[in-house]
């Protein structure tokens, strides 16, 4: 793709792209901007900027007259008197027989794992007297290494969700497990004589060895029964690509720790796929040599919509999803992979040529990645390129499949639907998942399901599929049930429960046992017996205890295998690309209101399974910063051409089906393309998910699960308010995020420091304050931050931060103590994107402290800027005076203190704040205190690294480090002394304790841009 081929339009009456570009060109130096409105100098944006809390943040939007004021003042006085009640009596309820291992008041940690798409992420879960409150990563688990993603962090809220399915239902009426067993037993007897000809099991992707063994024994008992799998955001593309390349299903995993040059073909490796958390860590560890001396790795990204990988890239190009295969072929041709002709459609671009040269120069130490959602031919070509470069066996490891039974899932579900429609299915057991909502629209799954005489559904939520089934069995949460699962490298983990099922839920193991055993067995027995069968009885107890303790079963990682590439792989892939290219040419997207439609799982609610999780709904989505909604993402060029604005509702029409979606303009999104995320628009769900977003599944086809080559869209004239947080708590475009290239750093190590002013230490009217003991500080590496937002949810879980809801987010009242700001740099059509986590800076000379009339915020002896909730009277002066906009005010009573099950969720070490109280990041002071008390009780000094903040612990790329800055040998001191270190708004002489390391990029000298831009 080159700049010239792209159609550019700018309507004269709107501030078009040309005007925005003009604005950028008029500016000196690198210009950073947060949104298109900011760049355009929009009036509404200015209003947002100049008010402490944006529009309508105050309760009274209309004027207040004298009479109203007196009424309110009188009422407040009267209520103030009423509010003083005596402290209620509290009960202490000790154990009757106290378990030996429990010390009341001290949490315990248990190793377990969470699965997403079937693959395990190892976890350590904190339990307070038997109630899980916080999830951490398991440092011994290969997919985690101690870090987590946002989904895992939000798992505890999923457990305590009051809207979870709590009752076993028969045709929507309350029933019992016993009557379920009874009614099933007769039908199963009949099936036994038919050898199970009418019995079908539908699962999601299964890596659990125990579950697979159970299903296999079921298939042995009912030889004509069938097992189908379907995962809406599954890995069919990778599977089919591996089959094209190697003739069979093969698992591919990557060793980013050995890769110097990485080329991503629409692969969002920090966000998507089974190894994402681990890959992020390996990738940043490899690059974490910021001294400018050693050669840093380089990342090239081709993306079809802005991705996290693209924001990390040293070079990225944006193309439509339909153009990715051609680009893959162009790269393969430039690498001289045998049998790959140069594609006719794409002229040789300097980007591809330079990247190919770089990859070849690092043969064996490079990596070509194909996106999870890129078509199979791209995967096959990526395999061919890695083989050609000698990466296979070095940075690319092929193993046997991790999945128990890899299949083409779309075909598997299609076969099931065909049989259901033909009336061959008598009993269908749906073990997890919500296929009525998520199945490809062309299957009309719900309709076919109606033809099955007995339909059983196991899920944790009373969802769309439950409505279509005779029996709905509430599924136990993974923190409530025994199971096992495997990680991306095959390592097995025994999933152990932290709590007994809150609502009598059952696991898939227990439900399957009904089919195979005369007396149904418990999940514990099933899982334990499976592993006993594996290891033998001798020494089993020791093995079992160690496996549970460590959270990994030793020796279960799959060995790497050397696989030859099929001779047919490359020709087949090239032919497929040519075919798709021809279709693409025919589609001709030149028309006014047509484009390709790209589907992606949602970054926070995935395929819809987390839709009822308030933490994930309110988590600003990386890059778009939307909350509580999905949107149809379009690029600025398309917006300028069609006159669409953020929130304008369009009707998207494809193949006779249509959906109405609000538009969101995403800088860097390619023209001629529209991206929608799945999982929203739930028709049957809990209270949280109700009414959020629209449902793109209705347009999704089994033949084109991730990309519809041509859809048309038409503005409806309606508008939907979208709660995006990108303007909230804005800091007025000062020099906040600093970026340099390695080359610039090498030439001038002071270049980062010079971008802002640092006042000398003695410049102060007040006498200085000494910190003789510890002085806590934090450093954040902007080069490492991927913007994944796991830290935000971790902070929310650790610090009892409430969910406020869409309407309150629209008023700018979200409560997250930690936000990840996103900055753009350069051309709106293809900007560089930078992430910057911002929380309380714990200024040594904090502007908030001096304005508090009641002394509710002040300094402690270690330099923490502390907030005393019980003193706070809610004047909000502190927030007004905070240059970083990190203080959050409880405008309403956001914390739910009445729903009984939600009381279990709270961290007992942190105060639950009520209405009218200011709050902010505390550096996880509860963790500092706990660690210090432990060290003092043991009579030793605190060790560096002993205290980790919640955000630091969750971070997959280890971008945050916390510690004692008085200790010269601590990691945080080392980071802070880097030449790229700087403080935010240091010119104000606030002396922030949290500082940043500038984002360092390593662009290829061969692609030196002439105008500060690098384009394909």
């Amino acid at each position, binding site marked *: 793709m080159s700049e010239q081929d792209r159609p550019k339009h700018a309507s004269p009456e709107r501030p078009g792209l040309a005007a925005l570009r003009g604005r950028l060109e008029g500016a000196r130096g690198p210009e950073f901007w947060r949104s298109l409105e900011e760049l355009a100098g929009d009036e509404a944006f200015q209003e947002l900027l100049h008010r402490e809390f944006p529009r309508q943040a105050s309760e009274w939007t209309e004027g207040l007259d004298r009479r109203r004021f007196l009424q309110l003042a009188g009422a407040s006085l009267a209520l103030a008197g009423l509010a003083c009640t*005596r*402290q209620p*009596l*509290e*009960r*202490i*309820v*000790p*154990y*009757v*027989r*106290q378990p030996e291992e429990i*010390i*009341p*008041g*001290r949490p315990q940690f248990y190793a377990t794992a969470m699965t997403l798409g079937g693959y395990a992420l190892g976890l350590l879960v904190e339990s307070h007297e038997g109630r899980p409150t916080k999830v951490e990563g398991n440092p011994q688990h290969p997919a985690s290494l101690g870090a987590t993603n946002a989904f895992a962090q939000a798992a505890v809220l999923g457990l305590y969700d009051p809207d979870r399915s709590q009752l076993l239902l028969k045709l929507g009426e309350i029933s019992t497990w016993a009557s379920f067993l009874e009614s099933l037993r007769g039908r199963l007897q009949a099936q036994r004589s038919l050898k199970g000809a009418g019995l079908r099991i539908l699962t999601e992707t299964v890596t659990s060895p125990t579950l697979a063994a159970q299903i296999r024994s079921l298939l042995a008992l009912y030889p004509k029964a069938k097992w189908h799998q379907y995962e809406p955001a599954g890995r069919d593309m990778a599977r089919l690509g591996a089959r094209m390349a190697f003739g069979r299903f093969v698992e591919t995993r990557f060793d980013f720790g050995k890769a110097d040059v990485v080329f991503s073909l629409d692969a969002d490796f920090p966000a998507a796929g089974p190894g994402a958390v681990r890959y992020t860590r390996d990738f940043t560890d490899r690059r974490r040599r910021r001294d400018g001396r050693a050669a840093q790795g380089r990342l090239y990204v081709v993306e079809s919509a802005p991705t996290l990988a693209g924001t990390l890239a040293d070079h990225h190009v944006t193309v439509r999803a339909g153009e990715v295969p051609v680009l893959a072929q162009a790269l393969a041709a430039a690498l001289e992979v045998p049998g790959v002709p140069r594609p006719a459609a794409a002229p040789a671009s300097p980007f591809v040529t330079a990247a190919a040269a770089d990859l070849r120069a690092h043969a064996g130490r490079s990596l070509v990645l194909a996106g999870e959602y890129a078509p199979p031919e791209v995967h096959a070509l990526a395999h061919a390129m890695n083989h050609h470069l000698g990466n296979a066996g070095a940075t690319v490891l092929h193993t046997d499949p991790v999945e128990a039974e890899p299949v083409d899932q779309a075909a598997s579900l299609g076969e099931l639907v065909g049989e259901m429609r033909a009336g061959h299915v008598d009993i269908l057991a749906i073990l997890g998942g919500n296929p009525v909502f998520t199945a490809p629209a062309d299957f009309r799954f719900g309709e076919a399901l109606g033809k099955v005489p007995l339909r059983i559904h196991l899920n944790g939520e009373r969802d769309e599929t439950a409505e279509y089934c005779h029996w709905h069995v509430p599924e136990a949460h993974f923190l409530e049930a025994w199971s096992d699962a495997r990680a991306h490298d095959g390592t097995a983990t025994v999933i152990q429960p932290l709590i007994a099922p809150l609502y009598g839920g059952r696991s898939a193991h227990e439900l399957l046992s009904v089919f195979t055993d005369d007396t149904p067995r418990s999940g514990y027995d099933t899982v334990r017996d499976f592993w006993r069968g594996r290891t033998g009885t001798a020494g089993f107890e020791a093995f079992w205890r160690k496996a549970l303790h460590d959270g990994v079963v030793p020796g279960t990682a799959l060995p790497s295998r050397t696989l030859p590439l099929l001779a047919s792989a490359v020709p087949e892939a090239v032919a497929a690309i040519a075919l798709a290219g021809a279709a693409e040419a025919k589609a001709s997207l030149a028309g006014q209101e047509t484009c390709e439609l790209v589907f992606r799982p949602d970054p926070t609610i995935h395929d819809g399974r987390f839709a009822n999780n308030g933490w994930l709904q309110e988590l600003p989505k990386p890059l778009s910063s939307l909350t509580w909604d999905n949107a149809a993402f379009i690029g600025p060029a398309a917006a300028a051409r069609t006159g669409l604005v953020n929130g304008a509702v369009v009707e998207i029409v494809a193949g006779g089906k249509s959906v109405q979606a609000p538009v969101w303009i995403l800088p860097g999104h390619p023209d001629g393309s529209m991206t929608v995320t799945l999982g929203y628009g739930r028709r049957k769900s809990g209270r949280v998910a109700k009414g959020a977003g629209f449902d793109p599944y209705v347009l999704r086809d089994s033949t084109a699960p991730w990309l519809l080559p041509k859809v048309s869209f038409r503005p409806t004239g309606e508008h939907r308010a979208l709660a995006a947080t990108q303007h909230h708590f804005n800091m007025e475009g000062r020099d906040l995020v600093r970026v340099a290239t390695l080359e610039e750093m090498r030439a001038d190590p002071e270049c980062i420091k010079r971008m802002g002013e640092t006042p000398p230490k003695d410049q102060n009217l007040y006498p200085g304050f000494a910190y*003789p*003991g510890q002085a806590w500080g934090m450093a954040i590496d902007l080069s490492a931050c991927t913007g994944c937002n796991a830290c935000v949810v971790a902070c929310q879980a650790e610090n009892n931060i409430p969910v406020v809801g869409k309407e309150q987010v629209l008023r700018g009242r979200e409560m997250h103590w930690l936000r990840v700001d996103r900055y753009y740099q350069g051309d709106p059509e293809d900007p560089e994107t930078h992430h910057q986590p911002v929380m309380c800076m714990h200024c040594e000379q904090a502007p908030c402290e001096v304005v508090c009339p009641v002394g509710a915020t*002040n*300094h*402690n*002896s*270690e330099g*923490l800027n*502390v907030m*005393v*909730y*019980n003193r706070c009277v809610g004047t909000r002066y502190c927030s007004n005076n905070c240059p970083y906009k990190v203080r959050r005010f409880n405008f309403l009573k956001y914390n739910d203190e009445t729903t009984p099950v939600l009381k279990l969720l709270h961290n007992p*070490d*942190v*105060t*639950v704040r009520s209405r009218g109280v200011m709050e902010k990041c*505390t550096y996880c*002071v*509860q963790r*500092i*205190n706990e660690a210090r*008390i432990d060290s*003092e*009780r043991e*009579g030793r000094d605190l060790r560096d690294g002993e205290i980790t903040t919640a955000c630091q612990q969750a971070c997959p790329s280890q971008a945050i480090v916390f510690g004692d800055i008085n200790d010269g040998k601590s990691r945080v001191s080392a980071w802070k002394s880097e030449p790229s270190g700087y403080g935010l708004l240091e010119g104000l002489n606030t002396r922030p304790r949290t500082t940043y390391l500038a984002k360092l990029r390593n662009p290829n000298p061969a692609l030196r841009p002439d105008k500060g831009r690098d384009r394909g």
Partner: protein
Amino acid sequence: MPQIFHRSTNTLSRFTIYAAAFLLAGLMWIVMAVARSPYTTGQGVVLEQPVPFSHEHHVAGLGIDCRYCHTSVETSAFAGMPPSATCINCHKMIWTNSAMLEPVRASFRTGQPLRWTRVNDLPDFVFFNHSIHVAKGIGCASCHGRVDRMPLMYQAVSLQMEWCLDCHRRPENHLRPRSEVFNLGWQADDQQALGKRLAREYRVRSVSDLTSCSTCHR
């Protein structure tokens, strides 16, 4: 025009102004007195409990160590309340038919826990840690009083913030050797000298550390 106000009005108004000042001061004194009174703080008030447990009998009479029941006092923020099983350890042998102990036996039989009323109750925004106080040489009696002289348990001190700060500002007034922490009747010969020595020896943190808000509030 005659005077509207009689001359005595001058005296009366002077008196009223002075009296108002005293009245205001008096009112404030009453408010402060109420705030510090046992009515507000609960100091010295005996609360109803499921079993009228006597610390005097068990501690002074029988010589049972505090830690026999409050097991986690040295390791955790929470001192620990004995599970019913701990009571039954002895009471399966003695007073096995006492009507007073029926709730304990019932709890042990049925598995339903006893529900004690918290006597020393801090507000929810205060985070007190028993283990560190014990480790630094603060005796049980410093906060809980002479529990060995309490037939029924009550709160011995006000537990108001000024009371906490009193010790956090001058810890030497209350430090004792670690060996005497659980000795309720222990008295120092020269508390000041001993306290200062122990503060150094036990590395008690500085007053500015101990009086930082985040030491107790988070």
